[in-house]
């Protein structure tokens, strides 16, 4: 089970989504710790780190770092692959996804993620299926 997903750029948290509940007051300390931990790893180092009961899986996409904290029983390589699935979905949704989308369309990032992961479990491995309800809702809303 995944617990949260963070996107960070230059050491700042740009986006965070929690799949399971943790007290909001602890979020900022957790995020700071996790980001610092992942930033300190070399670029070619192993992308899995231990963090208490969780395994951190992080992956760089351009200037942005995506981090997922998952249970230790999860398949790390699969989580690693999921991050690229998510980024591909964002690419497809935004046309060309870049860090300015994270800044300006933060609620869309949440929505895409929600179609792919609920309660920390992968919901939809197909990008097309994940995006179609969002695009449908977008058309309805814009009317």
């Amino acid at each position, binding site marked *: *089970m995944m617990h949260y997903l963070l996107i960070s750029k230059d050491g700042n*948290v740009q*986006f*965070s*989504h*929690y*799949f399971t*509940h943790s*007290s*909001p007051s602890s*979020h*900022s300390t957790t995020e700071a710790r996790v980001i610092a931990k992942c930033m300190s*790893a*070399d670029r*070619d*180092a*192993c*992308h*899995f*780190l*231990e963090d208490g*009961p969780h395994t951190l899986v992080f992956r760089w996409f351009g200037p942005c770092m995506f981090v997922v904290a998952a*249970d*230790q*029983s*999860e*398949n*790390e*390589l*699969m989580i*690693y*692959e*999921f991050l690229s*699935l998510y980024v591909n979905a964002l690419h497809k949704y935004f046309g060309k996804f870049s860090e300015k989308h994270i*800044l*300006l369309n*933060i*609620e869309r990032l*949440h*929505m895409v993620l*929600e*179609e792919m992961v*609920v*309660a920390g*479990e*992968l*919901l*939809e*491995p*197909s990008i*097309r*299926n994940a995006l179609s*309800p969002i695009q*449908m*809702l977008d058309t*309805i*809303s814009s009317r």
Partner: protein
Amino acid sequence: MSSIKQVINDAVEKGKEVYEKVRQPNPIRLRDLIRQIRSAKTAAEERAVVNRECAYIRLTFREEDSVWRCRNVAKLLYIHMLGYPAHFGQMECLKLIASPRFTDKRIGYLGAMLLLDERQDVHLLITNSLKNDLNSSTQFVQGLALCTLGAIASPEMSRDLAGEVERLLKSSNAYIRKKAAVCALRIILKVPELMEMFLPATRSLLSEKNHGVLITGVTLITEMCLQSPDMLAHFKKIVPNLVRILKNLIMAGYSPEHDVQGVSDPFLQVKILKLLRILGCGDSDASETMNDILAQVATNTESSKNVGNAILYETVLSIMDIKSESGLRVLAINILGRFLLNADKNIRYVALNTLLRVVHADNSAVQRHRSTILECLKDADISIRKRAMELCFALINGNNIRTMMKELLTFLENAEPEFKATCSSKCVLAAEKYSPNVRWHIDTLLKVVEAAGNHVPDDVVSSTIQLISETRAEQAYAVGELWRHLSVAQLEFQPMIQVSTWCIGEFGDLLLNGQADVTVEETQIIEIYQKILWSSQCSITTKEYALTSLMKLSARLNQEVGSIQQVVSAFGSHLNIELQQRGIEYSQLFTRHNHMRGPLLERMPPFEGVRGSGTEGEKGGVAITNGLDNSPDNQSLLNDLSSPNNNNNINSTHENNESNALLLLLGGIEPGEGDTVQASTSPATSTTNTTPAPRSTVNADILDLLGLEPGPTAPSSTTTTSTSPAQLSHTNNSSSPALLLDGLLNNTPSTTTTTTTGIAPLSTPTANSTTLPTNNFIIPQSLSQPSVPGIVAYDKNGMKLDMTFEVHDSVTTINMLATNTSLAQVTDFLFQAAVPKSLQLQMMTPSSTSMAPSATLTQVIKVNNPSKVPLRMRMRLSWQANGSVVQDQGEISHFPPALWQ
């Protein structure tokens, strides 16, 4: 003047601007807010922007403005993400959810997901909204509600909405079904009793074609199987279905929708492999069914890409966990061998991780990769090094200990501080288990202490001391080695100095009479000790070691006793209260009580059978009686336990005020307390204890000194001085008075816990390690155990429960010691028990609910058995390890009959 005017004008302008902004009809857009916040140069500026916006948002919320509510909530979500409080938007989210517009609903649900937490009262309100939307006729509304429910469901909400979810799980719409499946998963995680309800609908999920439904269905079944053994048995029959789905996936040609780097839906494949592993574990029929498909996946999967390796990784885990054919296991281990040589560090990490998980199933297969694993110890990557270290310890055996230990010591020397503590502890354990001879063992421990510097945990220090103490033949060698270390020591590494000073204090005579293979002058020793005692680099604990050690040396050295006295008395005015007390007490031994200094500073009896207690729970801990304790709790506890002959003891000491005066001098205790201290054995032992054990004359002399008259009080005084007769016969007779007085002398403030552990035969190992060396007073646990033998109540699934007993009239106190023998961290440990109706059961709170690998916890259970019927107990155990729940139950019927006879 003009500048002041300008400033005022500016301020007025600014004020107007702000006012207009607050009053402006249209609130700024989210992206404008983001720009403003991003352009803030300082944290204070950012805070100002956020506070202004929050104030404005609150204002519009109060005005019940529904046109801009959506935009405002969206801004609030952004502010929330930045870490500012945004809980005041919760109600607005609920209003948005209730709105008929899709745009509002989307933001409302998103807000609910992000802003609400499980403990909010607003949950009741949102439950109603969710119920409405789950019954909506539009699939998107249902979908939104399901997503939110999956994210925030609390136990109450789960109970209220389980019916709706179950209905949607049977929907014909795949979009709804997959979301309902994840909601069901969340619900059974919160309320496991609701599992039954979802069972029929869950089974039909597997016949679906849609991958989203399949993957969530498999996830849901996996969770059910993990949660309940009944479900596990029930789902055994779906193994052929899963095999078929997996086969179709591999055989299917290219499908653009689910293709990831040339592999067809790796996510689903991995989920199915995981479920197969759970279903096939320990079941040869199910394993038989899977063998073929696992072999197929293992051979057909492309291993050049990350996805392929992810699948292979999961396959290997499944092959090793189920009862697979031996050929398949070889294949799996070979895949891991390939992984280990992979250039990608992620793959190497995963390989080590997997080897660690399978090493218990197939040690010899993993041994083949030993040299590669040792190579990984030198890897630059910290995650890889950590896994490699853990794996190395799992691979150590009697044949390879020498080479492995050599590598591990090199690793330990260069390791990061965070590794040093665990690594050194594990080195000690491994050396203890497999060391070829004692000399090698001592050498290894000394190297460990040296290599780990200041990161040596206390239990390593005490293990080393115990080892040297109990091996008489090697003491001279050890003390020589330690002297060599100490004479060139950098004073910054405390543990090495602690071990050295302790041993030199005890065995200093061996050092001087040439047995130790070094030539040492007494003046040299004093010089080093002075350096340690007055160094600012040494910790107080180290100085305590050194001071006591120096005192002991005063009975071993011949010429330098005078300078020792000088050093010791100088500590009478030390700033640290502990050292000061020692200084004063010890200088008294040079002056008023000089005649008893010799016997008092006798060598300690060897600490037999207690080594390793700090880490190996099943060996049982050591019981430490720490001498005297002023805490009233402890006092009453001791009195309780020793009630059968306690009065007698009190009489004997009250007759002898002189002795109390001496005790007062030595330990600073109140009269009347000294008597109960040694009665820490259980009553059962104390009563059998009244026959006087043979005592040497020295012992009698000491008693004489204390003012205890031999004669009528002799039997009870024996119980006072010796914990059990066994102890006297075990240890050197002449040393027991020293033992006693050592106990009396050591009156450290932190003794409450240790003394209580002395009472219960089960002592907490951590307490030992901290107090052990300074207190110098140890009673092996086996000696203070009551007469009823203990039992092993449970030893399965990486969990061991030992029980020891104390009988008091009709009440049996069961001390349970749980040991985590697995490699995983155990959390949420729960032990439940039931006894026949004629008995009464009382469970005390356990010492902890979580255990690190090979750590222990204790729990006390009291059983009242007035009618003396044979004791039986049904127990249920559950704990979490590796993220999954382990449950087991059973009956304990092999309690020793002595408990009720």
